[in-house]
C-alpha cells in the first residue's frame, strides 16, 4: 500500500512513564514509519525534569525528532485531558498501553486506557504487550457484523494489513441468534426456522461479499467466518484461540457507562479481558 494514503494522519500516544514507556515509544516509531504519520506524545501529570529528559532521550533514540513529532504535557484528569488533546489536535488514532485484564474494582470503575476507549471520538489502539522491537501485526481478526460501520472498519483493516504485510486476516460475522430463537420454539417447524435463518445469513453474506468486492485487498488472503454466539465475546474468543495479534472492532454506537459493564455486551466483552491488541475504529462521521 502507498504510505501517502495516510491511514492515520495524526497519531497520539498516551505516555505514562511506566516500565513499558520505552516499548510504547518503539511502537509509536513503527506506526509513524508505516503510516507516515505525525506523532503527538501526550502525558498528563506534573512535569518533572527527569521525566522530560527521559522522554526526550527516547525520542532521540528512536530517531523521532523533527517537525513530525510533538510533546504535550498537561495537568489534571488524565482521561479528560487526553480526550481534549485528541480533539484539539484532530488526532486520527490514539494509542495507549493496556493490561489484558484489570482487577474487579478497576474493571467496573475503569482504568485510564479503557475509559479512553469508551469515550474517545477517534480510533484507538490498545497495546497489551508493546515491544521494544515491534514486529507489527501479522494476524488480524476483524468484525464483519452486518452494521453500517463495518464497511469502513474493514477498509481500514485491509489498509493496516497491507501496510504491515500481515499473514492472515479473518473477518468474523458474529451471529446472535437470540432474536430468531424467539420463534423457533413455538411457532415454526424446524425446517421453516432453518430456512428463515439461512435467508437472513445469506443476506448478510451478500452484504459482506459486496464490501470485500469494493475494497482494494491487493494480494491479501481474507478468510470470512460466521460464528454463533454473543457479539463481542465470540470474536474475542476467536482472537484468543487463533492467537491473533490485533483485533479490530467497530466503535460502539453510543457512549458506554457503568451499566454496560454490569450488563456487558459487544465491545465490553473484549474490554473485560483483552485477547490481544485491540483497535477500535471510529468512522469519520460517527462524531
Amino acid at each position, binding site marked *: 500500500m502507498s504510505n501517502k494514503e495516510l491511514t492515520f494522519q495524526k497519531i497520539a500516544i498516551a505516555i505514562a512513564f511506566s516500565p513499558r514507556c520505552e516499548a510504547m515509544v518503539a511502537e509509536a516509531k513503527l506506526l509513524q514509519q508505516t503510516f507516515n504519520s505525525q506523532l503527538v506524545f501526550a502525558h498528563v501529570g506534573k512535569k518533572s525534569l527527569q521525566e522530560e529528559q527521559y522522554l526526550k532521550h527516547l525520542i532521540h533514540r528512536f530517531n523521532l525528532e523533527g517537525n513530525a513529532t510533538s510533546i504535550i504535557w498537561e495537568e489534571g484528569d488524565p482521561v479528560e485531558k487526553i480526550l481534549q488533546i485528541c480533539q484539539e489536535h484532530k488526532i486520527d488514532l490514539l494509542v495507549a498501553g493496556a493490561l489484558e485484564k484489570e482487577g474487579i474494582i478497576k474493571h467496573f470503575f475503569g482504568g485510564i486506557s479503557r475509559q479512553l476507549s469508551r469515550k474517545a471520538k477517534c480510533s484507538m489502539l490498545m497495546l497489551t504487550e508493546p515491544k521494544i522491537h515491534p514486529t507489527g501485526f501479522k494476524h488480524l481478526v476483524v468484525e464483519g457484523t452486518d452494521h453500517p460501520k463495518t464497511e469502513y472498519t474493514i477498509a481500514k483493516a485491509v489498509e493496516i494489513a497491507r501496510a504491515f504485510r500481515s499473514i492472515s486476516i479473518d473477518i468474523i460475522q458474529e451471529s446472535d441468534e*437470540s432474536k430468531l*430463537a424467539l420463534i423457533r420454539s413455538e411457532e415454526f417447524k424446524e425446517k421453516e426456522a432453518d430456512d428463515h435463518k439461512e435467508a437472513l445469513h445469506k443476506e448478510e453474506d451478500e452484504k459482506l461479499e459486496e464490501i470485500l468486492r469494493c475494497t482494494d485487498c491487493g494480494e491479501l488472503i481474507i478468510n470470512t467466518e460466521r460464528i454463533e454466539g454473543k457479539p463481542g465475546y465470540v470474536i474475542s474468543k476467536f482472537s484468543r484461540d487463533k492467537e491473533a495479534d490485533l483485533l479490530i472492532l467497530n466503535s460502539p*454506537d453510543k457512549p458506554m457507562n457503568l451499566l454496560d459493564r454490569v450488563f456487558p*455486551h459487544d465491545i465490553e466483552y473484549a474490554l473485560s479481558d483483552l485477547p490481544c491488541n485491540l483497535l477500535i475504529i471510529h468512522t469519520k462521521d460517527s462524531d
Partner: protein
Amino acid sequence: MSVLSHSENISVILSIGLMLIAARLFGEFFRKLKMPLVVGELIAGVVLGPSLLGYFYPNISTIIFTQNDHAAIALSGIINISIIMLLFVAGMELNLSLIRQQGKAAFSTSVFGLIIPLAMGFAIGYFGYNLFGENSTDKIAFALFIGTSMAISALPVIARTLLDLNLFRTKVGSIIITAAMFNDLIGWILFSVIIGMLKGSAHHSLLFTLFYTIGYALIMLTVGRFFIDKSMPWAEKNFSWPGGFLSLSLGLAFLGAAFTEYIGLHAIFGAFIIGIAIGDSVHVTEKMKDNVSQFVTNIFAPLFFVSIGFKVNFVNHFDLQITLLVLILAIVGKISGAYLGAKLGGLSNKESLAIGFGLNARGAMEIILAILALQAKLIGEDLFVAIVIMAVVTSVLAGPMLNWLLKPKANSIETN
C-alpha cells in the same frame, strides 16, 4: 407416605396424554389458519372443558381432565410446575444486552409503550373498579394489575409476525422486539410486586415487597448472573452436556422459584429472573436454550393452556361489556403509548402505528398473567375470560395490521 391409588394414577396419566394430544391437534389446526399455536391450545381446553363438551357430556370431559380428588391435586401440581418452567423459558428469551443497547427510538417506544397503557389501566381500574365485575377488594392491587396486564407484550407472536412480513431485520422490527422485551421485564417485576402485596399484606408492607422484588432481581442479575456465567464452563467440562445444562438450569429455576415463594413473592418471578441470568451467559448457546425451550413449550406449556379451558367456563363467564372494555383499553393504551414513543423517537406516522400494533399482541404471557391473577383471587372469572379473549384478539390482529401498514414498503424500510 400416601401415594396415588392405582385408579388415580391412571387418571393423571390419562389426563396428561389426552390433554397433550388435544392441544397438539387444535394447535396445529390454528397454526394452519396462521394463528399462534397457543390460541389452538387454549381453544382445545374450552371445547373439551365445561364450556362445551363438559356441558353436554360431563363424564367424557372429566376423563380428559381428571376431577378425582388426589389425581386432580397431582395434576394441579404438574400444571403449577408448568407455569414456573414457562416463565423460566420466557426469561431465557429476554436479551438483556439488546435492552441495554437500545437507541433513542427504541428507548422512547419502550418507555411510552409501558407507561401509557400502565397509567391508563391503573386509572380506569381504580376509578372504574365496578365496571370489571367481581374482583379483589384490594383496589390498588387490582388497578395495578389492570395496568400491568395492559403493558405486557407477546414476544414469540411478534417475532413470528415480523419474520412472516420480512420486517425482522428492519428498524421497525428491532424497535418492536426491544420494546417488547423491556415491557415484559418491567411487567413481570410489577406483577411480582402485586402478588407480593396480596400475599404479604398480612406479613409485610408494600415497601418490603418492593424491596424484596427489586433486591432479588438486582442480586440475581448481577452477582447471581456472574456466578452462573463463571460456573458454566466448569459444569460443561464435568457434566454430560447438554443434558447437564437441562437439569442444572431447571434445577436453578426451581430453587429461585422456591426462594421467591418463600419470601412472599410468586414462584414464577424467581424462575423468570433465573431464566434471564442463565440466558445471558456467554457460555449458553442458543442450541442449549432451544433444548430447554422445546421440552417446556411442547410438553408443559400445552398442559397449562389446555387446563385453563377446564378450569373456567368461558360461556357462562363471558361478559360482553367487560370484554369490550378490556379490549378497547388494551388496544387504545398500547397503540397510543407505543405510537407516541416511536414518534418521539423520530419515526414516521405509519411506522409508529405499525410499532403500536406490533406491540399490541399480548399472546401467551398475558394469559399466564391472567391465570395467576385468577389463582391469587385478584380477578374474577368474568374478567379472566375477557383478558384471555383480549390476548387472543390482539395477537391475531397484529399480523394483518402490520401487513396492511408496512407490507408495500417492507423492502424500502431502512434496514438496521
